[in-house]
């Protein structure tokens, strides 16, 4: 039976949304993984949003050194699917699993609203169910979502088709309107917007559903 791990750090606050997405959309077992765990026995891993360790020092910096992240690094290097949402994306860049970094929004404000995104790669386990060029609406809720990377990193991202989501209207100053990227191998994806909060009519948008369906069909085909 398929299982999806959801990592919980002190200060995570979207872990229950992620667990609910796994259980309701994918209809598979969600396994909470505590930050001090050092083994992973699941078929995919979600790093949820929130403020791990209070965002002390830099968002994601302390979480990236936790025992579970050492296990996630090994898991990802063996090809395991990993997605980091919001703070999870920040943890992935701090861990070196994804290139670049997420700086303070250029507006310096915390932005919480729905945004329109362009799907720019459907070659990841999480975006197979989308069409390239498709527009989706996910909420964002962050103060440090301004994606930045040096010119050679941006060029590599573009050449390898590693940019997965772009903002239609850039809310936070991100380089090249980047909202989400993958690693070169495409099994690790990070994005600032929240697909797990976009699953039904009462959340105004259900555009996040295909992301979890994509993961389910990927796992059914590969596990």
């Amino acid at each position: 039976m398929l299982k999806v791990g959801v990592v919980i750090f002190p200060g995570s606050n979207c872990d229950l949304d992620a667990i609910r997405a796994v259980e309701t959309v994918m209809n598979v077992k969600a396994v909470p993984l505590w930050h001090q765990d050092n083994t992973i026995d699941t078929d995919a891993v979600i790093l949820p949003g929130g403020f791990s360790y209070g965002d002390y020092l830099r968002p994601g910096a302390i979480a990236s050194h936790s025992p579970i992240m050492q296990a996630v690094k090994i898991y990802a290097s063996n090809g395991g699917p990993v997605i980091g949402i919001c703070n999870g994306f920040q943890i992935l860049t701090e861990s070196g699993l994804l290139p670049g970094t997420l700086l303070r929004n250029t507006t310096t404000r915390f932005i919480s609203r729905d945004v329109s995104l362009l799907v720019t790669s459907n070659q990841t386990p999480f975006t197979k169910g989308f069409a390239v060029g498709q527009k989706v609406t996910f909420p964002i809720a962050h103060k440090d979502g301004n994606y930045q990377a040096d010119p050679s990193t941006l060029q590599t991202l573009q050449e390898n088709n590693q940019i997965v989501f772009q903002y239609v209207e850039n809310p936070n100053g991100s380089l090249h309107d980047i909202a989400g990227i993958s690693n070169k191998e495409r099994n690790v994806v990070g994005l600032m917007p929240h697909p797990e909060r976009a699953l039904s009519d009462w959340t105004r948008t259900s555009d996040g559903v295909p992301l979890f369906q994509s993961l389910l069909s990927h796992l059914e085909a590969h596990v």
Partner: protein
Amino acid sequence: MFKVTINVDPKKDILDPQGKTVQHALLNLGFLHTEQVRIGKHIVIQLQVDSKEEAHAMGVKMCQDLLANPLTEEYSVEVEPC
């Protein structure tokens, strides 16, 4: 015992929106000569090690491993006995 003082600052070519906002606030308060504001972090660590050199090397390693993000930040390490 040594006192290690570490300053972590945004690199010069990195936009510092926090610094910019504080600059605007200072200008609004009448500090009209405020040309630029950059905001970083000031970290003070007490280390129980034998030598100043050892304390300095450890401070640098701390910056590399955790305290600074090499992509966007630069750091300085100063050591004094305490």
